[in-house]
């Protein structure tokens, strides 16, 4: 299970171990944690909701895209759902490659793509209210009905 949506806390070591292998000399992890302040506004907690079956498929798609761009890369991604406190881990992306440059690039590609195509939503809880992000603050319009392909990094 390289691409997982879970409501349990994520263990960095566990996600990393899925991609460690004799051919790889480098693993790059991205760990997304809940940040307390965004544009000066204090977040109390976050809630993540997913469409789990489709989200796992989309994560797999990202893994396949990485394989095409960086054939020697192996990717594992786990994203958490439910209520998260400040500094809790929301997502861990682990990419292993024989040489490190590719691991950084492929990892960064993965997080960009997650933010574009994976059906997961974040609700911010502030002292004075709450809001689904991607709703009003960062409104996006998709003229084609689908997210755009990302330009290559």
């Amino acid at each position, binding site marked *: 299970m390289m691409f997982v949506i879970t409501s349990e806390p994520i263990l960095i070591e566990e996600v990393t171990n899925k991609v460690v292998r004799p051919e790889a000399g480098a693993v790059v992890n991205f760990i*997304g944690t809940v940040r307390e302040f965004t544009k000066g506004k204090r977040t109390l907690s976050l809630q*993540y*909701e*997913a*469409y789990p*079956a*489709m*989200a796992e*498929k989309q994560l797999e798609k990202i893994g396949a895209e990485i394989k095409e761009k960086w054939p020697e890369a192996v990717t594992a991604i786990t*994203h958490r759902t439910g209520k998260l406190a400040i500094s809790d881990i*929301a*997502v861990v992306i682990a990419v292993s490659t024989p040489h490190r440059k590719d691991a950084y690039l492929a990892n960064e590609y993965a*997080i960009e793509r*997650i*933010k*574009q*195509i*994976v*059906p*997961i*939503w*974040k*609700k911010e809880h502030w002292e004075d209210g709450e809001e*689904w*992000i*991607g*709703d009003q603050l*960062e*409104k*996006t*319009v*998709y003229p*084609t*009905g*689908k*997210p755009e392909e990302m330009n290559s990094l």
Partner: protein
Amino acid sequence: MINVQCFAHIREQIGKDQLILDETKITVKDLMDKLSALYSIQTESIMVAVNEEYAEPGDIVNEGDTVALIPPVSGG
């Protein structure tokens, strides 16, 4: 019948996480227009998935398919 799953602010706006539409064959666009009229939701920023894959406005939804309304995502 077509099952429509709702997420995030769309789920809260509609007040249900699932809708059952009495349709047998309809384009994504026509389906969205119906939902827009029924629930006064803004559809221009909503993506649609059919059977867990993103769909185009002209794609056909058939009886038994699972449709999902996907507001702009914010994972990561």
